[in-house]
């Protein structure tokens, strides 16, 4: 009884992540790869993503400081981050990455700085939300995993 309630909560949390645009269809693709052989696959990939994106973001942070107006360098770093976001379906974060790249293209330093703050914010928010989600899933038990949201 308790479990089905938790599962419902997890499903509802996931649905709202999609509804609010934090996640997109690619996240479902990743979930589809999870099975009994790889029961924690999604969480493992997401963990790797946050580790990797943390590193990429600190590269960008350094580059913004150390290489002023080096838009092609900034863009190259952000391209990597955007690719990573894309791979797990981190939609809002990806959009902010794209904004940043637009600003690079326009040679707009202010725009880059602003966008980067947004990227950082989206990163932090997504991390917190997904951590809660996985925690809930764990509490709900193995059957609570991988239910597609009603879109």
């Amino acid at each position, binding site marked *: 009884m308790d479990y089905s309630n938790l599962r419902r909560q997890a499903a509802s949390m996931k649905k709202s992540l999609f509804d609010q645009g934090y996640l997109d269809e*690619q996240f479902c*693709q*990743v979930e*589809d*790869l999870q*099975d009994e052989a*790889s029961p924690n*696959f999604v969480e*493992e*990939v997401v963990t*790797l*993503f946050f*580790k*990797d994106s943390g590193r990429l973001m600190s590269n960008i942070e350094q580059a913004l400081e150390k290489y002023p107006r080096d838009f092609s360098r900034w863009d190259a770093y952000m*391209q*990597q981050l*955007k*690719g*990573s976001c*894309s*791979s*797990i*379906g981190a939609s809002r974060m990806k959009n902010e990455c794209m904004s940043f790249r637009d600003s690079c293209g326009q040679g707009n330093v202010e725009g880059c700085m602003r966008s980067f703050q947004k990227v950082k914010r989206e990163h932090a928010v997504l991390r917190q939300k997904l951590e809660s989600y996985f925690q809930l899933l764990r509490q709900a038990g193995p059957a609570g995993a991988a239910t597609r949201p009603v879109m």
Partner: protein
Amino acid sequence: MAVAIETPFHVLAVDDSLPDRKLIERLLKTSSFQVTTVDSGSKALEFLGLHGHEDSPISVQADQQEAAVNLIITDYCMPGMTGYDLLKKIKESSYLRDIPVVIMSSENIPSRINRCLEEGADEFFLKPVRLSDMSKLKPHILKSRCKEQYQQEQHLQSNSESSNSSNPTNENSSSTCSNSHKRKANDDEILPHATRPKHS
């Protein structure tokens, strides 16, 4: 003599991004491939048996590696050696060039795609790569296997004909394909070593 191939095909996946490596590995395993992942083009070449100088691989290992990798799938944007650079090196290697290569990229840039295809890439996947993309891989492997098998059969055929002349006649010693045709006609007469055809 068609033998059913039981062992799964072996794919070498190259990507500098850790989450992407994990994803491609899972995609491939889910599609019944045996997978090796590396994080750079140079590590890929090492695995394939090429150290430094392209055309002189470490021979023993290289034979094994060559036989073992049926397809290479690589990210385009990587620091140091890009996927395109890797593709070029593979195609320049006389013994690796027949391994099909697939390029992945998160950027949809037609000139980039064309460049890769022109350099000999068999397929280009836009990232994020999906499960449905995996079904495109086997045809390329099978195609290159057919080619390899055909070439091996050709080689064996011309070998069995030329081994029949550890053979006195000088004109045959500089052996080319055309010689082996000639040799066929001479078979019955010349051969001390070869198994004799049934004579009366």
